[in-house]
């Protein structure tokens, strides 16, 4: 069952095949499930925490040796939902195979309500130095409609606490909630900016299949904001955050100087990463794998000594290069053309084909020593990325 990584002599030109220096751990617990959320979450079933920690210990234990990593991301769900003792146990399981490099970035996703004194000191004790707070909004009505159980006051307290031990604090915000107006979003965003965090992730609400919101949308109990409203809200967010010193560095990510999330940049740069826990997705040795979304199925498989894989795919070089280019274009900085070609074996111009010149002409894409999208290009990122990826039959 051991996963072996003894092939140390790797082609240094293929970063996707390099040894991962990042780890994601999915903690599937939440107090309750929010109506828009389709993450792998078991809400209100804390009696499963032990079973989860056992499974994580087993899954991580399958690695046959120790690795050094630069970034660790505890996501979910809400890792902050774990008790201090369980947080310690989780970190011990991770440390059994992974040692943190100097300056390693250790992020924990936290719900504002969870961040009491004890949890904060436990997080600090296990080495968390970056806190990503699931704030979503500071507006009472919007919070209620999103089925969040915290208030604006809770958020202020939580930010304060996070700052006491973390060197970087981020908040997640949602816009285009059902019924939300442009004005309301502007007010909400301003309130969030007054928190003065180092990082903001601003997401347009998406209606995911299998969520309450999806069902209600289909039953016409709620309506989705129209395209113009969404676009205006998004544009406003970009401008307002930039003005406030939070520069956009990815489609939904904004950071003060030196506060970009290094872990997420690993994804966008096509670098490899390990991942553990239900629904966790890894990219190791050029292979994408995703664990079972169902927490119970994940448990059963791990307990039976089987790798809990739901999906596995290894792309051949050209599709892999195309995917890498498409994902890199989410990043405001795009990708450096020369190193891209060296690392993937395909030139950017070749992959863009006829679209390259026409997108440049239309002001969607800029290409010098780097290739990147303009703000107009990012507005229709899905279109552009699908054309880049579609070009392979």
């Amino acid at each position, binding site marked *: 069952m051991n996963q072996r990584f003894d092939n140390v002599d790797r082609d240094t030109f293929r970063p996707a095949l390099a040894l991962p220096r990042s780890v*994601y751990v*999915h903690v599937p617990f939440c107090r309750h499930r929010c109506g828009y959320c389709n993450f792998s979450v078991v809400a209100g079933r804390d009696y499963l925490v032990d079973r989860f920690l056992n499974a994580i210990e087993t899954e991580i234990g399958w690695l046959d040796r120790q690795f050094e990593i630069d970034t660790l991301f505890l996501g979910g769900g809400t890792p902050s939902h774990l008790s201090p003792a369980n947080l310690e146990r989780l970190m011990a399981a991770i440390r059994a195979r992974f040692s943190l490099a100097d300056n390693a970035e250790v992020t924990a996703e936290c719900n504002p309500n969870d961040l009491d004194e004890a949890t904060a000191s436990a997080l600090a004790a296990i080495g968390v130095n970056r806190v990503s707070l699931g704030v979503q909004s500071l507006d009472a009505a919007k919070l209620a409609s999103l089925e969040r159980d915290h208030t604006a006051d809770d958020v202020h307290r939580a930010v304060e606490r996070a700052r006491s031990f973390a060197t970087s604090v981020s908040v997640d915000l949602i816009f285009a909630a059902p019924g939300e107006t442009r004005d309301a979003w502007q007010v909400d965003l301003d309130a969030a900016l007054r928190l003065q965090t180092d990082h903001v992730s*601003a*997401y*347009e609400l*998406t209606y995911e299949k299998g969520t309450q919101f999806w069902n209600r949308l289909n039953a016409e109990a709620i309506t989705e904001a129209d*395209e*113009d409203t*969404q*676009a205006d809200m*998004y544009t406003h967010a970009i401008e307002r955050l930039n003005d406030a010193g939070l520069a956009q560095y990815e*489609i*939904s990510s904004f950071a003060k100087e030196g506060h970009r999330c290094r872990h*997420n940049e690993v*994804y*966008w740069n096509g670098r490899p*990463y390990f*991942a553990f826990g239900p*629904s*966790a*997705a*890894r*990219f190791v040795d050029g292979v*994408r*794998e*995703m664990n079972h979304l169902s927490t119970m199925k994940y448990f059963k498989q791990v307990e039976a000594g089987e790798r809990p894989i*739901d*999906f596995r*795919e290894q792309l051949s070089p050209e599709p892999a290069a195309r*995917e890498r280019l498409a*994902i890199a274009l*989410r990043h405001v900085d795009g990708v450096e053309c020369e190193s891209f070609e060296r690392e993937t074996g395909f030139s950017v111009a070749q992959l863009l084909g006829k679209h390259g010149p026409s997108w440049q002409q239309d002001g969607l894409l800029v290409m010098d020593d780097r290739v990147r999208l303009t703000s107009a290009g*990012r*507005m*229709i*990122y*899905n*279109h552009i990325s699908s054309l880049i990826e579609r070009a392979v*039959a």
Partner: protein
Amino acid sequence: MARTPTENIRNFCIIAHIDHGKSTLADRLLEHTGTITTREMQDQVLDDMELERQRGITIKARAVAMPVKVNGKTYELNLIDTPGHVDFQYEVSRSLMCCEGALLLADAFQGVEAQTVATGYAAIEHDLNIIPVINKIDLQYQRADEVAREMEQSLGVDADECVRVSAKSGINIDQLLEAIIDRIPAPTGDDKAALQAMVFDSHYDEFRGAITYVRIMEGTVKKGDKVQFMRSGTTHEVVELGQFRPQQTPCGALFPGQVGYLVCNIKSLEQVNCGDTITTVSKPASEPLPGYHEPKRMVYCGLYPSDGQDFKELREALGKLAINDPSFEFIPESSDALGFGFRCGFLGMLHMEVVQQRLEQESDVDLVQTAPNVTYEVITKRGETLEIHRPQEVPDSGEIEEFRQPIVRVNLIQPEEYVGAVIKLCQERRGIQQNTEYLSATRVMLSYDLPLAEVIYDMHDRLKSATRGYGTMDYDVLGYFPADLVRMDILVNGNRVDALSVICHRGDADRRGRAVVKKLKEEINQHMFEVAVQAAIGSRVIARETVRAQRKNVTAKCYGGDISRKRKLLQKQKAGKKRMKSVGNVDIPQKAFMAILDTGESNKK
């Protein structure tokens, strides 16, 4: 096996409205005659095509020989199971020609329905002895007495002669077997006469070639005989012959009155025309049997590979299908919008669906299908008659002397309270009422003449919804009649998309044009630029809609898990069918090509 004397043979078919229980009754007869043991039994044994099982309907006619002992005498009963759907009417009538009798089956609850009448009349026309059978008397709400009267009223059979059975529970099956022997006359024929064998069906066997289903009318056919197909003129040697019991069971010879199969090393079903007559080369019959005609394809549509590269594969797949289904026809065509593909002809809409479903199951080609249309006729100013199989073939209006469409006589049977709704439906579709008849105190048969184009697409669905499912319909083609028809074109960003043209009545053009462009607007995804969709007759634009340019299309989140989820989705989509065609710069999804069927009627479901 000893030869059954001709006077102990009974040839019959079971005819009924769809779902009244023909196949189930056939099962019971097979069981009661011991042709199949109960252990071998599975429901609707004769429906062995996978598609028939999936849909629970009979598509191809089947034949089976059942030996049975009654009052010490051994009889051979030859049963021909026929399809119930109107598209396959031609197969029904071929089957009828091979029988002396017919079991006319009616559901004890549903009663007489449109195809009960249609197939009943067909049997009467073929001079068959009819045994009226009321099936499903086990049903709690059976109304067999009333149904017997309905049969008497609509078809003139004697209500007292109805045999009441339950095919499902096996009630009165022996009584029915006796009625078959008593009431259906034995075939006649001289085994010394020149051979006349009627070809009534065929199927293709990968290893042995065409299996030809025959009924011997006159003479004898033996293994090793050199035989001639009289209409197609081809000669072959009989390498095997036998009967269906229900598996193919070889024997040495087939005698007058018998039903069986011939294997002659024929490599394509094209050479086996149903309705043809087989005779021997050494002693040929002077004339073929009457009653042969080409199956008439009433519905055409274009089938295109969504990836032009797959053209060859599609051609192979269609070829394979045609081998097994001579009533399906395909010829290469090309479209500016869709590239190279095929114009395919079908007996009707169900036939079209069945063929398409088989194509999808049996080949990997992603298909783009154009909306089906009926065949039209145009008389040009120069006096030529053009058969129009697709809207693109319609000449300029200046060249048209007369534009003709197929008209059908439709019989609709429904409970009295729905007559008003059905009349309204027929009037909306330019129907002309011909007749009204009360089959019983509460059930009425309406006859209308309607354009076939108005009938085939969704008339059946609309009838069902107008009558809460109680109405049934059936139709017969009357012929081609002049009508005020036009070709309506669709333009996408100014380019005419030939595959979206449609022929419709001039008076309906505005309404349909508006409906179609509206539908297309929904089907065509937003592009980076504005997409104008217009409907036009000649150069006159009659409707327009605009698909707005896309302003924003960006997914907010893309982390490690999202990348994997997206890949998983992509893989699934690849496995499914991605049907798109690009016209100019505009991607048009497969569904859009069907949008032109939207009639713009207000009460569409």
